[in-house]
């Protein structure tokens, strides 16, 4: 029903401040795509360009093959849910939801039916005659979503819709949004967040934005298992992936890296012979580290631990290594503080980066 296509889209303010460039992205009908990235990387800007609230200063944006660059926002068939909810403070919940339909001169019956249907889906029926200021944060959020639903748009845009809610409500609303998406399989949704948990749980595909462009596009597990670059590797997953500096000492079907910390890593990624001696970073996720039985990958003294019950986080500094490292061990290991530990990881769990980019073959 609605396919979105961005080709070489760019944005700069006043011709000088470049915020985004070379954005190429296809979004299929019914997909839920999440834009994720650090604060200030241009997620909202990209979303607002899709909405038509911000002028596209380069490239083209199409919906179903029709160029949208100069189409006014209201005619793009999109609805947007704002971070601050942006409810009309002087209107009741009912009028907030009915506003767009009244502007579109729909019949009273039609409006009533649409509003009541949305209210039922979102459990707002008892609050229809209240003003926004008499609602809790979660209810306001639902009104904002209801305002989008009544219009039955082709594309839903969400800009950090949960960031003003407390932790428990955030989880609950996240699940509601996931259910809402399931009940509307034909609607395309774009969801912006800086929270990778939201991104991982909601998305069909995640678009990681960084450095004015797209760092990687892929399914949540794709990004987790096969990050294209160090940025994505460290952005997805919590705590962030450890990077161990070293040099390639043997190439072939597997690559051997001599680490600065003294150890040796065997990575299940093939490399060509001309890569020999190249400076690389070996990436290993904290949860992939285990207490060593054979030859350890790294060793060090535990500076600090965080025991969460189901897992224990070890913060340690490797000998000869630069940055503090983190390991996430299942179960309780309360006694390890101040002790020396040796850790290893399976070779197929290791990642290999040179100049910030993954050496893993594509595809």
């Amino acid at each position, binding site marked *: 029903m609605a396919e979105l296509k961005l080709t070489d889209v760019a944005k700069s303010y006043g011709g000088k401040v470049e915020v985004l460039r070379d954005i190429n992205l296809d979004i299929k009908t019914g997909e839920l795509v999440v834009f994720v990235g650090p604060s200030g990387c241009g997620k909202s800007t990209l979303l607002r360009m899709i909405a038509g609230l911000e002028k596209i200063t380069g490239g083209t944006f199409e919906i179903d093959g029709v160029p949208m660059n100069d189409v006014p926002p209201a005619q793009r068939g999109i*609805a947007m849910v704002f971070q601050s909810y942006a409810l009309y403070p002087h209107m009741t919940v009912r009028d907030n939801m009915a*506003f*767009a339909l009244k502007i579109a001169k729909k019949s009273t019956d039609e409006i009533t039916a649409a509003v009541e249907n949305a209210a039922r889906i979102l459990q707002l029926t008892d609050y229809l005659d209240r003003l926004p200021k008499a609602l809790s944060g979660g209810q306001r959020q639902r009104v904002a979503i209801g305002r989008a639903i009544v219009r039955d748009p082709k594309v839903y845009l969400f800009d950090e819709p949960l960031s003003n809610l407390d932790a428990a409500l955030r989880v609950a609303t996240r699940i509601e949004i996931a259910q809402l998406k399931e009940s509307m399989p034909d609607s395309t949704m774009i969801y912006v967040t800086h929270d990778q948990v939201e991104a991982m749980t909601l998305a069909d595909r995640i678009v990681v934005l960084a450095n004015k462009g797209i760092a990687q596009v892929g399914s949540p597990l794709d990004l987790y298992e096969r990050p294209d670059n160090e940025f994505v590797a460290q952005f997805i997953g919590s705590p962030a992936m450890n990077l161990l500096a070293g040099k390639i000492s043997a190439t072939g079907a597997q690559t051997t890296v001599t680490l600065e910390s003294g150890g040796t890593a065997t990575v299940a990624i093939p490399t060509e012979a001309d890569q020999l001696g190249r400076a690389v970073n070996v990436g290993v996720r904290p949860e992939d580290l285990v207490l060593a039985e054979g030859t350890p990958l790294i060793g060090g003294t535990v500076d600090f631990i965080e025991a969460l019950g189901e897992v224990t986080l070890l913060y340690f500094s490797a000998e000869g290594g630069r940055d503090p490292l983190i390991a996430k061990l299942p179960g309780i290991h309360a006694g390890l503080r101040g002790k020396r530990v040796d850790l290893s990881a399976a070779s197929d769990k290791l990642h290999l980066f040179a100049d910030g980019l993954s050496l893993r073959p594509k595809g």
Partner: protein
Amino acid sequence: MLEQITFALGTMIAGVFGCVLYFFMSNKLLDAALPAKGVNAGRNINRANRIRPWLFMFPALFILGLYLVYPVFNSIWLSLHNRSGRTWVGLDNWVWLVKDGKFRESLFNNILWLITVPALATFFGLIAAALTDRIRWGNFAKSLIFMPMAISFVGASVIWKFVYDYRAAGQEQIGLLNAIVYGFGGDPAAWITLPFWNNFFLMAILVWIQTGFAMVILSAALRGISEETIEAAILDGANPWQVFWKIKVPQIWGTVAVVWTTITVTVLKIFDIVLAMTNGQWGTQVLANYMFDWMFRGNDYGRASAIALVIMLMVTPIMVWNIRNARKEDI
């Protein structure tokens, strides 16, 4: 001349130092009377803190009382006495007031002003605020519109006298309005003597002055509106007209009301413009000018006080409402 300047400076310095001295000494005294030490330190601090605000507010309260509350009671007292303010006449002045044709004319005109000026000034102010907010030279336009605020009512009246100035047909028209009418082939008219309509010509002056005030306040309020509600409305399909009237204006309704009532209070006291333009002739009399007439031309304290009280009665409810509204805005 020099003597006067020295005197003025002396008064200012004495006033400022007097105030400082008062606050300093009264504070000292309070601390001495309720020392913040010893066995009763806690209780003393609490008591002193309860007394201190009143101590500091006392001068203001006293002066307000002297210049506001006392005159009200004196006016009531005077309105029940004869022209010299010595002989008791009961309700005679009030009975006269009810029967007096000129008073009724003033009251009617005042109500006319009351309806027209706040509505027009607020409306023009709102439009000016909306239009100047979005354009590059908006701030310049704003300064121009705000400028009349800096002119005294009498000064403004002098300017507008030239706008309405009348010369017989055939002569060179120095009045702007007549020059235009004449230029289009019409007959020049003595605008401010046209019964009934001349009221509106006088009102135009106050509208011209107050629009700037309304614009400044409303423009600040418009800027306070969350940008996202406007964007949401645009996405909802509202055109600029609908965004303005259905999203923006309702959100600043409280401010509109405050502006409206503030201008209303100014209008109720309107005096200078009428005095300078017509002095109440040709059916343009208003209450404040009529009071002034009886006070200083008719030398009748009783009647003047009765008219003054009528003005106060009309202003009070609007003031109360205004203050309540302003308070609600804060919360």
